């Protein structure tokens, strides 16, 4: 959300442009560390981009040094936690109206500490006009970059790095936006940029693109001709006029020429035969609204037709639209979509971009930052720092729209490691991680938003408790509450604000907000304690398992996995139990489990499979710390290893709820290895490998995984994927199709969801799938 902060500045319009006061913690954040700048000045909006570093507190775990000491220290935690500062890279993009440009430049000058920066990359039609002003204010040399090159670089960047970037616009449907899953290969595509004129560019690779055509009938025609016809000066006002008008009063329709006969002839009478065809008369007045609407149709249809002709000539079916004519305006998206559907008979898809307005700025920035190789990294949209997509109905949330119209933000975090598809996905292009689309499912949306609202108190409490030594923890936690609460309210009104709304995106947004206010790992202490307790039970559990005969043991192992999964602070039903009964144990958890047959139960098939030859290599995505990973996953891993199956154990790179992190898993494994020869030798011989997922989410997106993991999966020829936990196996991936065997198991710790799936609280999902031959 773009909190302008400065009271009243959002609604005050142009007059306050010089006196606007900008709150640094809201708009130009992290300026003090900013190093590269780029600016894209369009006809009415300026987009500023800069690269900065963010200091974050991160929770680190470290093994105690046990060497030569007696390890039987019952009261000691298994490892120590320290909070350290870590620097991560972030891209900031700020969009504001050109009227604020001087105020903004002054502000930047005042807050810019870093003096290494000498150059600012500039693009857009206004770059020339404001060149002197920028050079004077910022003392930076303006380097002009080609507009289209920037646009395309920016487009490639968002298509590759932002999930749900592209969407189709569906008139009169709820939601109006239908987001597209990111295609693994974004090329080739057609970019139709509708600025004052229209440019049609075919993009074939990262660096190869070609201007294949254009049209002079574009946004400038709408604006210029519209201003002449209606005496309305502003683009937005013209669009508003158009949205109220009736083009049939001005246009000559097929039915005007054919009379009523068009029906029998199979013609659609509403088709426009001649734009403005009825205005060829001296003795009639036409309303501004009607003329504006007719003009809008004329231009949109024309652009759509040309785009289709070019798409056909170049055999392309994906056409992205951008430029100020589109810029999120529902009226233009609607008419363009209609036109494309009409002229291509549905064969070409009109796609729009959530961050369309930023493409030029992103591209200019990337041009200037080439030496930093930004394209080598993966980036992720920071939901905490980014404004969402606006609702198409201004009346829905007028204040928010007004504010965001003034300042709009996009922040992207540089991820430590590049993310790629899991090589075992059956069809990467059709893979959708999320099980339920909450933008679609209003009932589920309502439930989950309320659920997250209700859980907010607990999260705030937990966050404060995790930093007992901090003086400002309570204050920061309160800010976190406000931020996340606001996000939830935005999403209630505009579920599409950040792409497809899912339980995953709600969880991720919460993590981003927590990080934003320096609560990197509120569960670190809980996890530490749980891990300590569970480690102590490990040997007892393992010996009990070893005492069972083979068949009993297999079931016990699976039950152990499931029971461990009950320990989940992310689930409200469970966190209530854990909160009130800290002694709640493994055995109690097992008792809570549903008896077989489970809600989804393919255990028989799995057992049958286990009687066959061992798997070559299993990839296991672990879920919670403590009992789950130590008493559930590790015994299971141990059994697989004993069968001769290699195991890759994948844990989150960063913290999310009480999920076990990669670093924690290293320590846990080390501690278990010290107790258990099977694990010990497997680690030493690299038959058991611990890897990180590249994610910090309680859910799992198999299309964005750490490259190292993907490489390993390929090298070891993984032929079994085990996904555990509600977040990874139910909210996401429940329907994921893999090209190898897979096991998805979870305990449903949410009664609403359980009911939806036809079960009840603590119902068990055990889904063993073998791909069709």
């Amino acid at each position, binding site marked *: 959300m773009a909190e302008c902060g400065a009271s009243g500045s959002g609604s005050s319009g142009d007059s306050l442009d010089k006196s606007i006061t900008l709150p640094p913690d809201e708009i130009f954040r992290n300026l003090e560390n900013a190093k590269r700048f780029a600016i894209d000045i369009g*006809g009415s909006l300026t987009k500023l981009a800069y690269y900065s570093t963010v200091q974050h507190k991160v929770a680190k775990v470290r093994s105690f040094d046990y060497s030569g000491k007696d390890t039987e220290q019952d009261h000691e935690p298994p490892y120590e936690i320290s909070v350290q500062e870590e620097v991560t890279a972030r891209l900031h993009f700020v969009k504001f109206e050109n009227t604020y440009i001087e105020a903004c430049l002054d502000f930047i000058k005042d807050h810019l500490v870093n003096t290494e920066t000498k150059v600012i990359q500039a693009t857009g*039609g206004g770059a020339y006009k404001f060149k002197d002003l920028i050079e004077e204010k910022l003392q930076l040399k303006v380097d002009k970059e080609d507009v*289209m*090159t920037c646009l395309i670089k920016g487009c490639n960047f968002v298509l590759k790095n932002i999930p749900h970037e592209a969407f189709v616009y569906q008139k009169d449907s709820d939601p109006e936006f239908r987001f597209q899953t990111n295609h693994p290969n974004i090329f080739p595509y057609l970019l139709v940029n509708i*600025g*004052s*004129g229209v*440019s049609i560019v075919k993009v074939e690779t990262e660096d190869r693109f070609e*201007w294949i*055509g*254009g*049209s*002079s*009938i*574009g*946004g*400038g*025609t709408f*604006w*210029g*001709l519209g*201003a*002449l*016809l209606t005496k309305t*000066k502003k683009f937005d006002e013209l669009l508003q006029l158009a949205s109220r008008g009736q083009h049939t009063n001005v*246009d*000559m329709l*097929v039915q*005007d*020429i*054919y*009379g*009523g*006969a*068009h029906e029998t*002839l199979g013609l659609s009478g509403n*088709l*426009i*035969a*001649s*734009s*403005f*065809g*009825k*205005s*060829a*008369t*001296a003795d009639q007045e*036409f309303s501004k609204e009607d*003329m504006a609407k007719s003009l809008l149709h*004329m231009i949109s*249809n*024309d652009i759509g*037709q*040309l785009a289709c*002709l*070019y798409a*056909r*000539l170049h055999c392309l079916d994906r056409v992205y639209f951008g430029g100020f004519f589109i810029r999120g305006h529902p009226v233009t998206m609607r008419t363009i979509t209609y036109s494309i559907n009409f*002229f291509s008979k549905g064969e070409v898809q009109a796609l729009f971009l959530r961050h369309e307005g930023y493409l030029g700025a992103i591209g200019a920035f990337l041009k200037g930052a080439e030496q930093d190789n930004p394209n080598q990294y993966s980036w992720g949209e920071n939901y905490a720092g980014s404004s969402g997509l606006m609702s198409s109905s201004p009346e829905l949330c007028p204040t928010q729209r007004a504010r965001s119209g003034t300042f709009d933000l996009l922040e992207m975090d540089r991820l430590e490691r590049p993310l790629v598809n899991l090589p075992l996905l059956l069809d990467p292009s059709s893979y959708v991680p999320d099980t339920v689309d909450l933008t679609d499912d209003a009932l589920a949306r309502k439930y989950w938003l309320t659920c997250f609202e209700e859980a907010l108190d607990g999260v705030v409490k937990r966050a404060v408790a995790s930093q007992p030594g901090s003086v400002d923890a309570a204050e920061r936690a309160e800010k976190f509450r406000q931020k996340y609460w606001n996000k939830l309210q935005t999403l209630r009104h505009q579920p599409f604000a950040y792409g497809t709304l899912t339980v995953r995106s709600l969880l991720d947004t919460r993590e981003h907000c927590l990080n934003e206010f320096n609560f990197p790992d509120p569960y670190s202490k809980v996890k530490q304690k749980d891990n300590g307790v569970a480690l102590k039970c490990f040997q007892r559990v393992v010996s009990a398992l070893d005492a069972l005969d083979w068949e009993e043991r297999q079931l016990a192992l699976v039950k152990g996995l499931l029971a461990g999964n009950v320990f989940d602070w992310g689930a409200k039903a469970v966190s209530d139990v854990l909160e009130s009964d800290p002694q709640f144990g493994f055995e109690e958890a097992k008792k809570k489990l549903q008896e077989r047959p489970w809600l989804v139960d393919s255990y028989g098939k799995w057992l049958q499979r286990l009687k066959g030859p061992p798997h070559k290599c299993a990839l296991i995505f672990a879920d919670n710390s403590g009992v789950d990973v130590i008493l559930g996953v590790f015994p299971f891993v141990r059994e697989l290893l004993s069968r001769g199956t290699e195991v890759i154990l994948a844990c989150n790179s960063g913290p999310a709820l009480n999920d076990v992190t990669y670093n924690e898993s290293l320590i846990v494994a080390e501690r278990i290895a010290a107790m258990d020869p099977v694990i010990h030798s497997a680690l030493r011989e690299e038959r058991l490998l611990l890897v990180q997922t590249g994610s910090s989410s309680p859910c799992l997106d198999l299309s964005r995984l750490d490259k190292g993991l993907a490489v390993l999966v390929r090298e070891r020829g993984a032929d079994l994927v085990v996904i555990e936990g509600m977040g990874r196996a139910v909210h996401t991936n429940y329907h994921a199709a893999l090209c190898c065997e897979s096991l998805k198991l979870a305990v449903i710790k949410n009664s609403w969801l359980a009911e939806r799936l036809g079960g009840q609280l603590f119902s068990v999902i055990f889904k063993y799938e073998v791909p069709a031959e």
Partner: protein
Amino acid sequence: MGAGWLAAPMERHARAAATSASSARESVLGGPDGRRREPLRRRANSASAPAVGASASASPSGEGVRRDRPGSYSGATSASRQRVESLRKKRPLFPWFGLDIGGTLVKLVYFEPKDITAEEEEEEVESLKSIRKYLTSNVAYGSTGIRDVHLELKDLTLCGRKGNLHFIRFPTHDMPAFIQMGRDKNFSSLHTVFCATGGGAYKFEQDFLTIGDLQLCKLDELDCLIKGILYIDSVGFNGRSQCYYFENPADSEKCQKLPFDLKNPYPLLLVNIGSGVSILAVYSKDNYKRVTGTSLGGGTFFGLCCLLTGCTTFEEALEMASRGDSTKVDKLVRDIYGGDYERFGLPGWAVASSFGNMMSKEKREAVSKEDLARATLITITNNIGSIARMCALNENINQVVFVGNFLRINTIAMRLLAYALDYWSKGQLKALFSEHEGYFGAVGALLELLKIP
């Protein structure tokens, strides 16, 4: 032309009996499809009416009911004459009209027989004679009807008759007056078949029937268009070539209009610019398809000009355009990039944004109506050129014929089309034009009447 028609001297519509009775036979249009056959059936039935004599033609309106009565097929008195008539060529009765009722203009072609024998003249009914005289002795009909004398095709042989082909147009909004005139002059007594095409053939069909007692033979617009073009091209233009092109279209000094021999017409992209635009790919006489169309056509040019300049006629709009400067209105590539946009190979003179300069208040105040008319013309023309070029590329056709009344007296548009097509296709595409611009549909309709393939 309505007023003009009505102002025509009142005629006696006497005795159509003899000729019309036989005409029922001759004018058998028996097309293969039901749609074409329908009016014929009516013709056959109505043949009885004239037998009743002058009373019928004097009646205020042809009651459809009476005429539709079956079994009244030709009276016994005319039986012997019929036998004689049947020896004559099977051609319809005069007058021979072809009608194309478009969104803005009605195009009428009229064949004036010049080989009328004395005997024929003797037999010719008054109303027929008066129509002939009226049409051929005037060049304007009322305030809006116009005969394009310069287009007249002389000494044409049609169905064994020699004569001149006349080209007449009037605004579609005068159609009711035209129909009323048909009623007043009792056209129905002539038993001529009105072959009509264009959307108006459908729209006004009922009016023709109820007001004028005239049954239209409705014909497909595109069929007629193609038929008309191919026929007119084959007969030439009074010894000259029908088809032409422009050499050096961008250079007003060196620009030349030169004849083009359309000896290999296929494949051909046909761009018909009327109120809207239709684009057809023609592969042979009977094999064609509609590729696409655009609503940005002549109606848009004229409509926008009316709104922007207050002009009232197409001629006025064009005249203004000829004196205007569109570069004051349009934003050119050089206005944005200071010159050529080399990255994309765009020349500085190219229009980047039509009406783009009009985003600025100062510039809006600085332009004249003439500039606006010119810019409107350039915008619409360039856009048609651009769509035509893309269609030609997609259909793999390199000769493009532009027709339609938008091009009438519109050299600016034609030269621009010629230049744009040549420039953007790097010489691969050729823009062709045809002298009879907007009349092909009407000619096609006439050919249908005469069953000329």
